[in-house]
């Protein structure tokens, strides 16, 4: 709950600092999806902490966290002060982006052109990080795939008939999905892009799971499909880079994609944003389904 409010407030201050894209991401991820995942975690870990089997483990973990924290703080010492006008980023990088990106990339949203073209390599890293997080959650929570057709959560949902909620969600889910697509493909012209669109798309599916149960959701969203497509998004992104490598240019140099340089940039940005969107949406859905399955396992143990 507090996470959600924090997300909303930070989205507002990003908005007032004119960072619309960041605000959008924060509103979708910070205020929308992450509190949901937090609640799912709380539901699956239970109310009380178990005694650790080995008393040394928490101490080691604490030591690791402290060391990492100190390293991060040391890392920030070399950075210029927050908002300093003479920071290297404001000296030559930002002015160049602002001056030349309209001619070089030819799209109105400068954030997208920085994210998807100048810094495409960094963004590839981010997408791979998200994909890795998905794999991590999968391997931690349900490494062995169990084929069960009983869904305990569905019984719980079926007991209280959420009639009003179901009808409203039936009205709302299609516009949310369409809005996700709009954000995905409008990222060149306004705030938005693959990350935001993926999260919005996943949020619609999660809403569906919450109101209609896992059984129906499995029929709508095929699990294998989601798993395969979370990888295909990254693959799509990476293969754009490989295409430019094979044509004798640098990795993720879009100029090989078309004759006209700005058209080439457009195509490149569209394709990699699509890759980002697919991966983000699939990983979010995947994580949520894993959490749900884990909660079911906990409920099953409680009933024994």
């Amino acid at each position: 709950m507090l996470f959600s409010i924090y997300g909303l407030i930070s989205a507002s201050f990003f908005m007032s600092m004119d960072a619309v894209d960041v605000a959008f991401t924060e509103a979708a991820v910070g205020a929308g999806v992450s509190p949901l995942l937090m609640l799912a975690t709380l539901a699956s870990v239970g109310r009380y902490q178990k005694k650790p089997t080995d008393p040394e483990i928490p101490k080691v973990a604490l030591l690791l966290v402290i060391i990492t924290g100190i390293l991060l703080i040391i890392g920030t010492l070399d950075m210029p002060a927050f908002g300093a006008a003479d920071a290297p980023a404001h000296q030559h990088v930002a002015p160049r982006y602002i001056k030349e990106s309209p001619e070089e990339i030819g799209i109105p949203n400068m954030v997208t052109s920085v994210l998807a073209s100048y810094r495409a390599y960094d963004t590839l890293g981010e997408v791979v990080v998200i994909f890795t997080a998905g794999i991590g959650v999968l391997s931690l929570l349900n490494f062995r795939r169990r084929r069960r057709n009983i869904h305990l959560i569905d019984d719980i949902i079926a007991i209280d008939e959420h009639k009003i909620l179901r009808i409203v969600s039936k009205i709302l889910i299609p516009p949310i999905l369409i809005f996700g697509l709009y954000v995905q493909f409008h990222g060149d012209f306004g705030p938005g892009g693959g990350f935001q669109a993926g999260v919005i798309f996943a949020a619609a599916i999660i809403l569906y799971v919450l109101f209609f149960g896992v059984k129906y959701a499995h029929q709508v969203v095929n699990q294998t499909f989601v798993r395969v497509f979370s990888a295909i998004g990254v693959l799509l992104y990476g293969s754009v880079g490989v295409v430019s490598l094979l044509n004798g240019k640098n990795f993720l140099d879009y100029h090989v994609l078309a004759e006209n340089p700005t058209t080439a940039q457009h195509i490149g940005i569209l394709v990699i944003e699509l890759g980002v969107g697919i991966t983000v949406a699939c990983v979010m859905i995947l994580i949520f389904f894993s959490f749900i399955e884990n909660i079911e396992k906990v409920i099953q143990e409680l009933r024994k």
Partner: protein
Amino acid sequence: MELIVSIISGVCLLAGSFLVLSGVIGVIRFPDFYTRIHAAGVTETLAASLILIGLMLIAGWGIVLLKLILILLLVLFTSPTASHALGKAAWKSGLKPTNLKQRNEDRN
């Protein structure tokens, strides 16, 4: 004409802001959960609608107006539903409304 429209829009914005304020006071001052979501839910829907209508009046014809209408529709759907879901969840988990009369008698 323009003056009249801006006056109407100003009145809508002011009324909306007043309703938000009264809703907040209600959330803080009311005694139990159900009266609080009553204060928040009822005022919020009307207040958001009034503020959005006030903004629509000064937005003029264009894409902004369409977006504001979409936001208004979203608020009209989600805000009462959210209040309903909150109330239902509280009732299911066994929270009973406070009996004020009883409580006052107990105090005295």
